[in-house]
């Protein structure tokens, strides 16, 4: 079995077992459910998951292990990626990009952390984070930017010390429309519902 570079569904010819594999994990040659379980266990270990419980479940039903893999492991991995990305951005110094861009201030970073934590705590949004692959960065003024794109829509956030602004962009048959405004508790979920409603 070849090692895929990115997230990928792999179907076993002999068992019809589907796996989704994050790129940072190497896949052992899984030809049996037992091997599959060992692979899942190794991934779970990297997240300090309670493998004992899962082992018990896995011994009776590989499906339970697979469900946990999707619901718990992949989501945890995605969450961790986002948190790690923010940590990298937080380490930036002034002129980090060679274009005189400012480093994000501590209050901005804290606001971004809070923004992302709230996002990840929302079941409706976090369940879709696997597909979203948001792009997180900082800009020339030290704002932290959070961008999500799909085929026809974009939802972006600019996080500053005292305010978070959103920009929604959508394609129509003739034009590309845009709207920018301040983010608040009332419009946050509505914006995500708009973006995710395909």
């Amino acid at each position, binding site marked *: 079995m070849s090692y895929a570079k990115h997230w990928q569904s792999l179907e076993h010819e002999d068992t019809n077992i589907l796996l989704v594999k994050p790129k940072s994990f190497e896949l052992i040659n899984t030809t049996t459910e037992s091997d599959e379980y060992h692979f899942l266990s190794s991934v779970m270990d990297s997240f300090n998951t309670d493998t004992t419980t899962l082992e018990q479940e896995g011994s009776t039903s590989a499906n339970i292990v697979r469900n946990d893999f999707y619901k718990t492991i992949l989501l945890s991995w995605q969450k961790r990626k986002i948190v790690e990305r923010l940590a990298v951005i937080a380490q930036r110094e002034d002129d980090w990009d*060679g274009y005189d861009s400012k480093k994000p201030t501590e209050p901005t970073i804290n606001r971004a952390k809070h923004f992302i934590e709230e996002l990840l705590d929302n079941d409706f949004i976090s369940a879709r984070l696997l*597909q979203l692959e948001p792009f997180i960065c900082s800009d020339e003024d030290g704002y932290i930017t959070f961008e999500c794109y799909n085929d026809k829509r974009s939802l972006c956030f600019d996080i500053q010390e005292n305010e978070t602004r959103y*920009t929604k*962009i959508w394609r129509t048959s003739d034009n*590309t429309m845009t709207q920018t405004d301040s983010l608040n508790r009332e419009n946050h979920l509505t914006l995500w519902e708009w973006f995710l409603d395909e």
Partner: protein
Amino acid sequence: MNKNDFVEDDEELYRRLPINDHIQRYSHNNEGKVEINSKAFFDRDQQPSVDRAKLKNYDPKTSKLHDTDGIVSLIAGEVRGITIDNHTVDVIYAPILDFPKNLSHSLITVSSKNDLSKSKRKQAFSTLRRSLVLLSTVKIEPQEI
């Protein structure tokens, strides 16, 4: 004005996509395909450069500066169709006659109908870049070594 000096709405445009360095301009999606973000259109002067495909013989490779560069394409009329409050988006032909000569060179501009603060100009440019991401098609993927 020469008729060739105006970028027609149906013209294809090429934008060079250098490989990621300290600036992440793209990432790979679940299927391994390149997906760009707004950094792909960053420009210090807030006027991202593009090449007119028809003046490049419709060969995106000719817009590369380095072998590893990727190329994304846009349609001029779609770029002009980006609607940002109190702003006009345009594609302007701006050939470079000095070294490095580039007779296909053009600029994507966003200009305000009013005199705006620096932060509002920045916001408009940021919205432009994000809109351009939605309108872009990856023609050649950057080749990381």
